[in-house]
């Protein structure tokens, strides 16, 4: 029956018979019963319950062989039921002195198994003394088993087992130095290697050894093991001695021994990776990778680089993999060039199973340690050329991003791409990269021989028949761009390209068809083309997704930590890589429609897009290519910005509030702060952070944040362009809060100084931290308080927006009609006076709106406008750059449709006008009153919430001549 089972047939008969055999009195019957049961039934099987009683009788019985059988069964199955009913009996057996070693060692392991499976059921408290006793055992069999048990116990909780530590060292001494072992336990002349290995394993679970005596004697033993091992003829002896040796090495690493011993170890490993025995070579390489985690030995390891590279060519794939891992781990700036070149060379000969990993690793190394960027481009292009199919999209996306972000690199990359296209047979991925780069930057080469637009076009076009649809789409964009860059226009080329576009207008692939149609239409429009196809904007800095990917693929724990270590040491100098691209259904038209293309009726507004136009405040031209990774990046980047617009839901969505880079001349600065990571907090805040923030926007004191442990209150005073905030950090608990840290991330327009925050907040105490604010320039950006503290084991980190916003620097002012009209007229037209039709406004009466304005310190001046449906408000804004600046606002509402209004904002400073207009718009569209919970919906869904979502963004209004005219009142 068992045999049938092993051959893979499902055996579902005879279980009952097997279980009943267990209780049979005769040995053979019992044995068969036990064996069948232990093989066929798993721990959750119902029949096992039936067997428990019989098993128990055997265990507490007198017959030792029966005991053994029963223990074996329990050990092999080890279910919860067994653990509950039998653990005590097994423990008794283990420590009873009357049993034979045979039974006791089984009992030890049985207990271990039960403990592993159900640590909650088996009670091991107070076992440390007994374990210590067990370790005094003379019988090596029992000792080995006990050691296994100890390993499990110690790995669970090393504190209670300190007393066992010296014992372990003693055992090691006895084995390795005195060789005090019965003859039959020596295995090829090595005294019980298993026990030695297990003992050293157990020692590795203790953090350090403090007692100097123990430590010294341990090192003595280790030293002896390290020195005494040599490669010998007999394979088995070799294995055994090296098993001990490698374990000793691991222990040395763990103990973080003196440098001398370390370098000795590395030297040994260096010897191993050169020996003929493949097993030892394998382990040598693996241990060397582990060694990398220990500091200071990198230099010594580097000496073996040549040997490791040789291992890369080993016939054995296991060894090659190890060598690759090791090379990857040991790479740093000094040797990156050699290693990456070696990897590239190897790539063309490597077998398929390894190529993808190899390509990925080479790409990461090239990126992390590139001495100069042109080298990086070289490497990646070579890599793509050689590995072809094994290069994931991420790698080429990344190189494109790299080129886009580094202007110096662009001509070089274009030349390189051109060279690759000259080769007779190239991989499709190379076509993609080259086409993309040439499309963007080929005009930089136009003066070189063989690089005129026409020639580039023809060389790219040669590849067209051979590539797949996704590449055709890229090629079409490239053509459009070449066309755009050809100045003066070349009619012949234009006709050629148009012919291609019209050919693909009927293509079966929607993506290609759409591109063809659009480019065709666009290219007829002439000048508009160049705006739309302008160069890609730069990508923000972010952690390389390649590295993330590599971390995912590495499952080897040691290796993983090595990578992390690396990642910490070297901050990636590189830029973004796309995350997985979401299905990109947004047609390019959407993006175009925002930008000077009023003729194209538009479908749906991409919220991210809104964000960019809004935040940049200038006409931002976005390349209309939905399938390219880069667009997603912009999207990615802008997602947080888009939330910034309507701040109602910002904090809830998981992103910390992020500064829009509106108005700030140095958008780079803002970008650097922008990608604030998402926080996962285990401590839930009390109340809604966003609501609290909005309440504080309207008043000057209140609670900013509260959770079960802490309450942060705020009190503010504002005087012209300066402000003084006081943060009240109150500990609500009877235990102190430790590691308190508060960090202000100020936007570029605010100068903020936070006084020292104490690291510990005593129980039930409140600490005050004054914060000085100076407003430099008008901007809507929000300062963020990055606040963290530790309570018990909980680390809480919150990012809170500080209510130091635009309206806090307002001084309400009443203006009379005589003052108002001359001012209003003198500020004529953009950029000093801006007008916009805002739709999707929260429905509120005029009085409510006036109150809202007043609460934002925009003083409503009644009676100035003859139309009662209109509102005029005025205020003075203070900042260092603008000094006192009068701001005038006029709102014209439509009594028939409360959801839309026209707003005109005027001030003496263009930035201020724009910022103020956007600020008011935000307040009107989102619902800033605390009564209504901000929508915690996803960003995509958000624009759907107001009846008609954010439809007209500012640039559209700006660029719309009609709107501009209307702005002149």
């Amino acid at each position, binding site marked *: 029956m068992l045999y049938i089972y092993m051959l893979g*047939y499902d055996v579902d008969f005879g279980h009952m018979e097997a279980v009943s055999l267990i209780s049979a009195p005769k040995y053979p019957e019992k044995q068969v019963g036990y*064996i069948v049961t232990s093989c066929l039934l798993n721990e959750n099987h119902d029949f096992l319950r039936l067997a428990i009683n019989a098993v128990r009788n055997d265990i507490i019985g007198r017959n030792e062989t029966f005991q053994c059988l029963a223990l074996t069964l329990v050990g092999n199955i080890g279910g919860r039921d067994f653990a509950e009913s039998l653990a005590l009996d097994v423990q008794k057996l283990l420590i009873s002195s009357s049993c034979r070693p045979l039974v006791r060692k089984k009992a030890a392991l049985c207990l271990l198994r039960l403990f592993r499976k159900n640590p909650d059921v088996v009670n091991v408290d107070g076992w440390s003394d007994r374990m210590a006793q067990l370790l005094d055992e003379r019988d090596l*069999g029992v000792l080995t088993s006990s050691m*296994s048990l100890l390993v499990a116990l110690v790995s669970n909780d090393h504190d209670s087992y300190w007393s066992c530590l010296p014992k372990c060292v003693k055992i090691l001494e006895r084995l390795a130095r005195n060789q005090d072992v019965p003859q039959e336990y020596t295995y090829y002349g090595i005294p019980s290697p*298993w026990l030695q*290995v297990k003992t050293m*394993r157990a020692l590795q679970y203790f953090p350090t050894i403090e007692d100097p005596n123990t430590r010294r004697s341990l090192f003595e033993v280790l030293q002896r093991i390290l020195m005494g091992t040599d490669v010998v003829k007999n394979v088995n002896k070799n294995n055994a001695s090296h*098993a001990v040796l490698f374990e000793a090495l691991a222990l040395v690493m763990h103990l973080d021994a003196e440098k001398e011993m370390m370098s000795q170890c590395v030297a040994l490993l260096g010897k191993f990776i050169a020996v003929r025995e493949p097993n030892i070579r394998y382990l040598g390489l693996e241990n060397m990778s582990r060694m990398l985690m220990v500091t200071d030995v990198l230099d010594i390891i580097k000496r073996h680089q040549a040997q490791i590279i040789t291992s890369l060519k080993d016939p054995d794939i296991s060894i090659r993999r190890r060598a690759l891992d090791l090379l990857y781990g040991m790479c740093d700036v000094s040797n990156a060039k050699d290693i990456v070149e070696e990897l590239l060379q190897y790539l063309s000969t490597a077998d398929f199973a390894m190529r993808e990993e190899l390509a990925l690793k080479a790409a990461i190394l090239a990126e992390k340690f590139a001495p100069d960027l042109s080298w990086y481009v070289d490497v990646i292009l070579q890599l793509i050329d050689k590995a072809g199919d094994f290069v994931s999209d991420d790698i080429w996306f990344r190189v494109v991003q790299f080129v886009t972000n580094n202007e110096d690199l662009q001509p070089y990359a274009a030349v390189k791409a051109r060279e690759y296209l000259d080769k007779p047979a190239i991989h499709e991925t190379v076509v993609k990269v080259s086409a993309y780069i040439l499309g963007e930057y080929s005009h930089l080469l136009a003066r070189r021989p063989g690089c005129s637009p026409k020639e580039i076009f023809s060389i790219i076009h040669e590849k067209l028949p051979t590539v797949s649809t996704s590449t055709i789409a890229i090629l079409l964009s490239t053509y459009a761009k070449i066309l755009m860059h050809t100045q003066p226009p070349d009619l012949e080329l234009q006709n050629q390209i148009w012919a291609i576009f019209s050919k693909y207008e009927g293509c079966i692939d929607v993506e290609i068809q759409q591109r063809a149609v659009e480019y065709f239409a666009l290219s007829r429009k002439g000048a508009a083309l160049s705006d739309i196809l302008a160069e890609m904007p730069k990508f923000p800095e972010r952690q390389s997704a390649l590295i993330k990917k590599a971390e995912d693929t590495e499952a080897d724990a040691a290796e993983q930590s090595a990578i992390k270590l690396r990642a910490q040491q070297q901050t990636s100098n590189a830029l973004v890589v796309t995350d997985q691209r979401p299905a990109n259904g947004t047609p390019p038209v959407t993006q175009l429609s925002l930008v000077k293309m009023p003729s194209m009726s538009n479908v749906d507004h991409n919220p991210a897009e809104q964000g960019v136009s809004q935040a940049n405040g200038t006409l931002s031209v976005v390349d209309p290519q939905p399938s390219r990774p880069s667009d997603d990046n912009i999207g990615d980047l802008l997602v947080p910005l888009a939330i910034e617009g309507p701040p109602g839901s910002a904090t809830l969505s998981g992103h910390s509030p992020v500064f829009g880079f509106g108005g700030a001349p140095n958008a780079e600065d803002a970008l650097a702060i922008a990608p604030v990571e998402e926080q996962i907090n285990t401590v839930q805040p009390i109340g809604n952070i966003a609501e609290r923030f909005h309440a504080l926007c309207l008043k000057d004191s209140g609670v900013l944040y509260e959770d079960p442990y802490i309450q942060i209150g705020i009190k503010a005073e504002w005087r012209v362009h300066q402000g003084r905030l006081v943060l009240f950090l109150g500990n609500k608990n009877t235990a102190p809060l430790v590691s308190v840290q508060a960090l202000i991330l100020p936007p570029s327009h605010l100068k903020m100084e936070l006084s020292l925050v104490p690291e510990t907040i005593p129980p039930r105490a409140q600490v005050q931290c004054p914060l000085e604010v100076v407003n430099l320039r008008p901007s809507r950006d929000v300062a963020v308080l990055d606040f963290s503290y530790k309570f018990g084991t909980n680390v809480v980190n919150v990012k809170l927006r500080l209510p130091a916003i635009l309206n806090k620097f307002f001084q309400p002012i009443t203006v009379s009609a005589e003052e108002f009209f001359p001012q209003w007229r003198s500020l004529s037209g953009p950029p000093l006076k801006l007008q916009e039709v805002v739709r999707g406004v929260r429905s509120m009466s005029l009085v409510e709106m006036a109150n809202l304005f007043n609460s934002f310190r925009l003083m409503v001046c009644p009676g100035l406008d003859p139309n009662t449906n209109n509102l005029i408000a005025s205020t003075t804004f203070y900042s260092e750059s603008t000094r006192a600046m009068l701001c005038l606002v006029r709102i014209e509402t439509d009594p028939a449709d409360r959801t839309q209004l026209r707003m005109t904002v005027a001030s003496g400073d263009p930035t201020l006008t724009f910022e103020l207009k956007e600020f008011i718009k935000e307040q009107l569209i989102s619902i800033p009153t605390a009564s209504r919970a901000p929508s915690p919906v996803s960003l995509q869904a958000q624009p759907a919430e107001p009846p008609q979502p954010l439809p007209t963004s500012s640039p559209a209004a700006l660029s719309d001549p009609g709107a501009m005219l209307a702005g002149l009142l």
Partner: protein
Amino acid sequence: MIRAVMVINTTGKPRFSKFYDFQPVEKQQEIMRRIYAVLCSRPESVCNFIEAESISGPDTRFVYKHYATLYFVFLFDSSENELTMLDLIQVFAETLEKCFKNVCELDLVFNYSKMHTILDEIIFGGQVLETNSSEVMKAVEEISKLETASSALSLVHKSVSGWRSR
């Protein structure tokens, strides 16, 4: 711990298997098939360790040793030392050798329960129990003595004797 012990012959037929953490039958077969696929593609004189994460989940590797027509495979995780596992295979093989006197594939097929008994004396619930092959032999002999003694005395149920003969 040791996850599984397998003996597979060179044509890919499993001759013996024991899994220490429960796996459904299909999964066991799958693992054995895939291990065999890896093994038979490996030439002689390469190392005996293979990472098996793609085959049997994370943090597993296996060590194999090739004797005549049989592969002995131990599947285990990172808490064991690779070389000791290799040694353990050697001990297992030596014990079988002592037990059957010049062991061959057929011995394993026809003495199935004895294989189990031996293995139970060496590995117990995924942990190394005894590494001394003569000690193992002693235990095994004792058991078989008991077996013959009691079977001579009693009338064994028909179906039971049927199993035993396998």
